[in-house]
């Protein structure tokens, strides 16, 4: 515990010296996050190559700043123009936009800003407090346990993120195959490179990130042919202070919804949208008078916004403690660890504790800064929404391709990125999620390395290496139960329970 406190003190000093990078990340995140369709993933993908010339603390302060900023800015467009910047802000629109129509836009934005920041503070404070416990858990994981964790993530996440889960698992398989290109960890033999020297060290981590997400997104936005994000001028009426006071008035709702967001965020793949909709549902159920929900009640803004930002803290649990990304943004975040020479997984907590603390502190600071800046300069930010999309897209395109080059200073990386962009556009066209591919690409290295390590530890005995030990068996059971529960009919357990009750005398 003393060692942990000392690490916290060290990390706090590092965090303070890197505060300017958090601020830069916030500004970039707010700029990109306010443009619907861009969001957290694109922000992180564009920032990541720039961080390669920085030390790891500067890099992750910048990335955390960007990540925290996109969540609140998405609600600004939701409240003002009925278009949420991210799906996590979709529930906010239900009452936020009617408030704008009623002339209370500023009140809704004030409530959103304060509940967002407060939700993030609760979640990240709980994450930091639970670090001693998480550290003990991380120490239990050896190579075979990490192998099962990765298998679990690759099998379960596609079921949770798409309406075509088999296609999701198949694209995860393709993502894994991409990680096999280059030298084999066991033998250093070159695989699937077909004589291309640029591929001997494997596919650069930035190429699929920029290609599949930033460029493929640009293809999609450009093909929609939208002229501007907001066609008309938005009137900022109402009192922001009234919105702030409303959060304090409904403090228990805000706290409960923050905890809902934290718990849902900690489940890999559950996503931000579910946390905010469940929190909204809770606000409706727990209200003494349900009249007016959907017509502009401030509780309908407070509940989803506090859950939405708390889920960022919740996502730190699986992402940093286990190496299993809680969302696409966190998958890019973990790719950032790889790009900076660190391996995501339980060892991150053990080997990189100061970095984990810097990330948590940067994330909470980012949420607070975003709320303050957003609260103060919301009028100026909405002006960005009137810039024609056709002028922004070429700027983001050239930035993305330059970012692909920066990674290794190799022109071939731009070609590889372009190929991934075309692959991403094909996946968009056939309506298959790109997220399982990304997660598999990030976790693929872990899968193969840990497989060989576990096999070596068990002297080549697969049963001994992977199926013995309580944690291995627990993980196998969790994967089996999760997959089976997905396959079972809805209400199966209730029916079993009812049948058992009938059997009792």
């Amino acid at each position, binding site marked *: 515990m003393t060692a942990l406190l000392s690490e916290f003190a060290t990390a706090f000093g590092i965090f303070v010296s890197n505060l300017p990078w958090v601020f830069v990340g916030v500004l970039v995140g707010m700029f990109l996050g306010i443009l*619907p369709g861009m*969001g*957290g*993933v694109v922000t992180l993908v564009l920032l990541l190559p*720039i961080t390669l*010339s920085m030390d790891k603390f500067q890099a992750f302060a910048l990335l955390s700043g960007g990540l925290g900023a996109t969540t609140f800015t998405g609600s600004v467009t939701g409240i003002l123009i009925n278009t949420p*910047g*991210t*799906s*996590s802000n979709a529930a906010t629109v239900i009452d936020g936009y009617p408030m704008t129509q009623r002339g209370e836009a500023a009140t809704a934005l004030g409530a959103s800003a304060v509940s967002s920041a407060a939700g993030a503070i609760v979640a990240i404070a709980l994450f930091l407090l639970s670090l001693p416990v998480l550290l003990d858990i991380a120490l239990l994981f050896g190579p075979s346990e990490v192998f099962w964790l990765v298998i679990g993530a690759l099998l379960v996440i596609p*079921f*949770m*993120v*798409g309406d*075509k889960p*088999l*296609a*999701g698992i*198949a694209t995860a*398989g393709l993502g894994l*195959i991409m990680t*096999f290109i280059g030298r*084999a960890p066991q*033998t250093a033999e070159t*695989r699937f490179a077909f004589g291309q020297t640029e591929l001997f060290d494997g596919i650069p981590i930035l190429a699929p990130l920029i290609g599949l997400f930033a460029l493929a997104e640009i*293809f*999609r936005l*450009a*093909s*929609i042919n939208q*002229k501007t994000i907001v066609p008309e001028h938005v009137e900022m009426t109402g009192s922001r202070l009234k919105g702030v006071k409303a959060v304090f008035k409904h403090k228990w709702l805000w706290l409960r919804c923050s905890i809902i967001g934290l718990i849902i965020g900690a489940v890999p793949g*559950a*996503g*931000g949208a*579910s946390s905010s909709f469940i929190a909204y549902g809770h606000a409706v159920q727990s209200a003494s008078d349900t009249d007016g929900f959907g017509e502009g009640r401030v509780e309908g803004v407070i509940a989803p916004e506090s859950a939405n930002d708390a889920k960022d803290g919740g996502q730190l649990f699986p992402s940093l403690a286990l190496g299993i990304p809680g*969302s696409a943004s966190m998958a890019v975040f973990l790719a950032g660890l790889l790009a900076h020479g660190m391996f995501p997984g339980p060892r991150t907590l053990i080997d990189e504790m100061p970095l984990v603390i810097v990330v948590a502190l940067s994330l909470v600071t980012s949420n607070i800064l975003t709320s303050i800046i957003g609260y103060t300069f919301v009028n100026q930010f909405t002006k960005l929404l009137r810039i024609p999309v*056709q*002028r922004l*897209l*070429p*700027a983001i*395109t*050239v*930035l993305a*391709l*330059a970012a692909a080059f*920066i990674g290794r*200073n190799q*022109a071939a990386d731009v070609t590889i990125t*372009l190929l991934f962009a075309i692959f991403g556009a094909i996946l*968009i066209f*056939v*309506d*298959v*999620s790109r*997220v399982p591919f990304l997660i598999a690409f990030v976790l693929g290295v872990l899968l193969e390395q840990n497989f060989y390590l576990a096999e070596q530890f068990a002297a080549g005995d697969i049963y001994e290496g992977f199926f013995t030990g309580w944690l291995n068996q627990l993980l196998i059971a969790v994967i089996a139960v999760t997959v089976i529960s*997905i*396959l*079972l*009919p809805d209400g199966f357990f209730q029916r079993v329970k009812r049948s058992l009750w009938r059997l009792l005398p």
Partner: protein
Amino acid sequence: MSFIERIPRKLPTIQSVRNNVQAEAPLLVFYTVVLLVLAFLYINSFSLRVESARIPRMVIVATIAIIVLHIVTIFLNFNPSGMTGPNTEEFLEEDIEISNVDLVSLIREMIWIVGYVLGFFYIGFFTTTAAFVYSYIFVKDKDTSGLRRFIVPGYWSIGVTVFLYFILITVLEVYKILRIGILP
């Protein structure tokens, strides 16, 4: 509905199979190409040492099996989406509908970017960037007219090129980018 409840109780009619195949035709074409690539990689893996090829071969076989299973479910009109969680792009944190993306527009956008990359390699990064930003805005942004139609893309082109020069050369010192192509 869960996985088991979605299993069809009766064999599908020829008409329903035809409808499913038509609806998922792009995915089936995509799968065909992927299966061919996977088969090629599988055959290629036999030229590797056993220790290097073991895991890749297992993953290739598993992926082929999953794709074949998905093709079968498409023919049987059975969508095994077991959970009522957020859909694909909610996880990606976006809100814009992914369906109904126009293929022609998508290909047109790809051509723009392929053209830019070719210019990047054969002409030079900064020259191509300035030309690309100018021509893209000039062609696509039809809201401006008269002299402004020529001036606005110029502002953007100069702004973006100067910004990139500042980031790449002044801040990150990526001088190698100046040596690609015949011009800077």
